[in-house]
């Protein structure tokens, strides 16, 4: 493994882990569901992408790179939708939503 690939991969993976750490901290610090879902969804998507890019540098062969790309694509498709559904349930079932955040009247 070349020196460059090792360093680049490590940098990407460490950045991804840092963002995972931010996500965990946000999950524990924030109190309200929507804020926490926001943190989890965005940080997870970005961190998964960074970790996968780092692993692509480590792996090197086209098959593994393709698999990692597929993993990233799947997470990017699935994660926002799952978060969207959680938020939707919270908004639909919370009777006192205006206590928590500004509510825009939907048509």
């Amino acid at each position, binding site marked *: 493994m070349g020196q460059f690939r090792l360093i680049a991969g490590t940098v990407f993976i460490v950045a991804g882990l840092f963002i995972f750490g931010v996500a965990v901290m946000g999950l524990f610090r924030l109190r309200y569901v929507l804020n926490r879902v926001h943190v989890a969804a965005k940080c997870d998507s970005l961190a998964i992408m960074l970790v996968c890019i780092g692993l692509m540098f480590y792996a090197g062969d086209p098959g593994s790179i393709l698999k990692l790309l597929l993993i990233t694509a799947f997470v990017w498709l699935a994660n926002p*939708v799952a978060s969207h*559904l959680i938020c939707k349930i919270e908004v639909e079932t919370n009777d006192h939503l205006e206590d928590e955040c500004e509510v825009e009247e939907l048509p």
Partner: protein
Amino acid sequence: MSLLSEDGKKTVLSFGDWVNANSPEIPPEIDYAKGGDPKGPGAHGHDDHGHEDHGHEDHGHDDHGHEEAHGHDGHGHDDAHGHDAHGEHGHEHAHFEPHEIVMPKREKKPKVKREKVQLTGVEHSYRVFAVISGILLALVLLVTVATLPRFGSADAPAVNEVSRRYLEQGLTDTGAVNAVAGIILDYRAFDTLGESVVLFTATVTVIFLLQQSKRKNGEEKTEDEVDVNTGVRSLPAKVIIGITFPFILLYGIYVVLNGHLSPGGGFSGGTILGGGLILCHMVNGERFTERFITVKRCTQIMAAGLFVYIGLKTYSILTGANGAASAIPLGTPGSIFSAGLILPLNICVGLVVACTMYALYNLFTSWRS
């Protein structure tokens, strides 16, 4: 149970009184029921549908309800404890309500479950005994684990001529590159048949327990039911499922078909297939999935898979196991059509597992009290 467990005996004794004394507070409960049944008075009719015994209790007079409550007074103290542990007992007490008060069954669940209960001496000793025996069991297990041979060591008792034979002769005997598939679907195929039959039996049992007859026409559909029929009311979820669902199925089929070449096989691939079907049902609803798979078809597929399995394995045992030549060629190891019967057996097992998963989920969602 919160109604009962304020302090043991007294509250159980006064259960009938509770119903009368709190009758002004009933309307809010009916409001709460709107989550399940949008029509307030209609809720009662909905209840009657499911519970014949409820109708029987309705005929009783008000004091009849009192009698029942006092009958329970006999085991008053114990009863309160039992209720703290078991949620479903609350439904029995729901029958004691007088006729005028219309209370949907679902709201009878305890709201403040974990009040401190006074334990008698015997119960204290039970708890102490439970803790001690648990710790002893954990110690025994830990000591056992500590004396096990190391993972993968050569002098473990598992390393004997049987496993050596499997590893050395497996490829030539079964033709499967994946040794695990060779073992579970060739050497020990009878064992796998048993596992599949267990899954089939579980599904049939759940069908017997949970399948309900069709609703009569003209009944109000609850909100829950609408959800089951049409799925999530969210466009992004439906679009994304439309994109990913074929790929999930494709991956499951790949894992099933490639079982004799790579890790995976019937159980893993079948679970992935079942998970994909469950996801589709969850998002798109019953109306969408019943076009290509229903519980009835699931049972048919499972039965067919089991019969094909039994037939193939009977043939294999009759011809191959005695050392006689089997008509099924093993093929070249590594190609997709190799390993004799393992590929069709994998398909059978995968179908059985996938249908089990989907049928269980479908029955669980469509069931309503």
